[in-house]
């Protein structure tokens, strides 16, 4: 039971970083980047490949996983410069499928659908991080560090600018603010943190494969931000913990194992639909024109 609780706590740490990173681009900047889960995947794969194939140390591989994911966001930023609203969401979805196809078909690097096994856990200060209790301490430290950075960003002038431009981009421009640059920067930062969470994920499970980064994962992350209220730091924190723990009681019900996975997705989707239905005005405010 203790191992099980530690497992859930580590999952909470990973998803907290991931959900908050998505909250930067979606909650603050108002950009529904459906390729966000792809940046999570890039972080996980970058960490796995660097540690296994190139023997990188945990710290270097962890930092580079964020850099790799951030570099990918340059492409997403290029779409955002040309597309708005729903069109941007569709464009970013296209990018998700490109990454997904690469993970499956670029076998020389990603090992295709078989995935990459044996991803090492950190070797730091002679602590055995293969012991889950120790890994939890590391995950909590990394999670608190990432969340502190994202909180400071949210209350900074830059966070204020992101919120302003998402509400009225023309008014933000008329204050002399470079809205396109702010959006690109928001992608860069949110992707870097998604990359970090991907690295922790890969390190924890010792394994990555394309099925871990499916669109259903994107729906889960989207639910975490939407339920917690986009842009709200504490709301997203609570909703993430709630949604990670929510399906767990299902394990103790008398359902066949094959039904539990789909049931989880149904629960998440139902919550998402309900929240969107009841709070659509707050979630999708009317855009203003010049």
């Amino acid at each position, binding site marked *: 039971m203790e191992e099980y609780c530690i497992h859930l706590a580590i999952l909470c740490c990973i998803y907290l970083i991931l959900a908050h990173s998505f909250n930067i681009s979606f909650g603050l900047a108002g950009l529904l980047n459906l390729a966000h889960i792809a940046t999570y995947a890039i972080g996980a794969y970058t960490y796995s490949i660097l540690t296994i194939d190139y023997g990188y140390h945990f710290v270097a591989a962890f930092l580079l996983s964020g850099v790799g994911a951030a570099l990918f966001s340059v492409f997403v930023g290029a779409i955002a410069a040309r597309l708005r609203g729903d069109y941007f969401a569709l464009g970013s979805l296209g990018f998700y499928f490109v990454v997904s196809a690469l993970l499956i078909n670029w076998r020389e690097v990603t090992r295709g659908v078989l995935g990459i096994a044996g991803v090492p856990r950190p070797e730091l200060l002679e602590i055995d991080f293969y012991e889950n209790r120790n890994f939890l301490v590391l995950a909590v430290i990394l999670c608190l560090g990432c969340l502190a950075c994202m909180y400071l960003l949210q209350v900074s002038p830059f966070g204020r600018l992101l919120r*302003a431009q998402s509400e009225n981009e*023309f008014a933000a421009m*008329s*204050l002399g*603010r*470079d809205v396109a640059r702010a959006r690109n920067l928001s992608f860069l930062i949110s992707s870097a943190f998604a990359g970090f969470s991907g690295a922790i994920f890969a390190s924890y499970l010792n394994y990555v494969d394309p099925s871990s980064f499916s669109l259903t994962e994107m729906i889960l992350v989207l639910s975490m931000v939407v339920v917690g209220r986009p842009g709200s730091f504490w709301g997203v924190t609570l909703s993430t913990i709630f949604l990670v723990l929510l399906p767990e009681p299902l394990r103790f019900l008398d359902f066949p194992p094959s039904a539990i996975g789909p049931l989880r997705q149904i629960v998440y989707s139902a919550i998402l639909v309900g929240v969107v239905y009841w709070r659509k005005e707050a979630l999708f*405010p009317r855009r*203003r024109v010049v």
Partner: protein
Amino acid sequence: MSSSTPPLLQVSSLHVHLGGRDIVQDVSFSLTVGERVGIIGPNGSGKTTLFNSLSGFLPVSAGSITFREREISTLPPHRRAQLGLGRVFQNFGIFREMSVFENMLLAVESNRKIPKRRRQSTVAEYLDLVDLLEKQKDKAGSLSGGQMRLLEIARTLAVGAELLLLDEPTAGVSPKLKDSVRNLLVHASDNKRTIVVIEHDMGFIGQLCDRILVLDVGRLVLDGPPDEIRSSQKVHEIYFGDAHA
């Protein structure tokens, strides 16, 4: 305009082509520092399109826009704003979900001349100027139309705009607050800010402006003092047609 003083804004042979039509055609005028200018014309005469092209939200098809002797017609909106070209929108360009304080703080943060340690006090000064200091913690969306307008104008002033382009600043504003809007603009003009107002309220324009430009079907047809414009046969023809002239 004094011949020795270069104009603040010089618009020359401006054309804006949209959706297969020339919305603004061959418009030329100049503005000097501290001037208060009104732009009038029937609906569809190209007033807002002219503002959008001046502030960079619409591309210019031909002609030039010079601000402080610098060609700005190809600059993006935020660069023009940084140079001192401020815009107040017809549909209230405030951030409704943010507090009144945050709205003003965003503007103050955009003004690089204001040091970081003076930001809070500058916000308070501008909010005091428009009588919104007591409402600084309120959501901007909860303000009345007139208060939103005052906040937006004060914000544009706080950014450091030298030229304010105001699109129907009295729309949705109560008569009492219209006076406040006018007083604020006169105060700004006295402090060497140039004001250009698109307005249908001729009383407001007459009290505020010392020069009026008349647009019709995208062309600048008249440019003169309010008395001259008010008595112009051509203005009557534009608004009421030949039969009423």
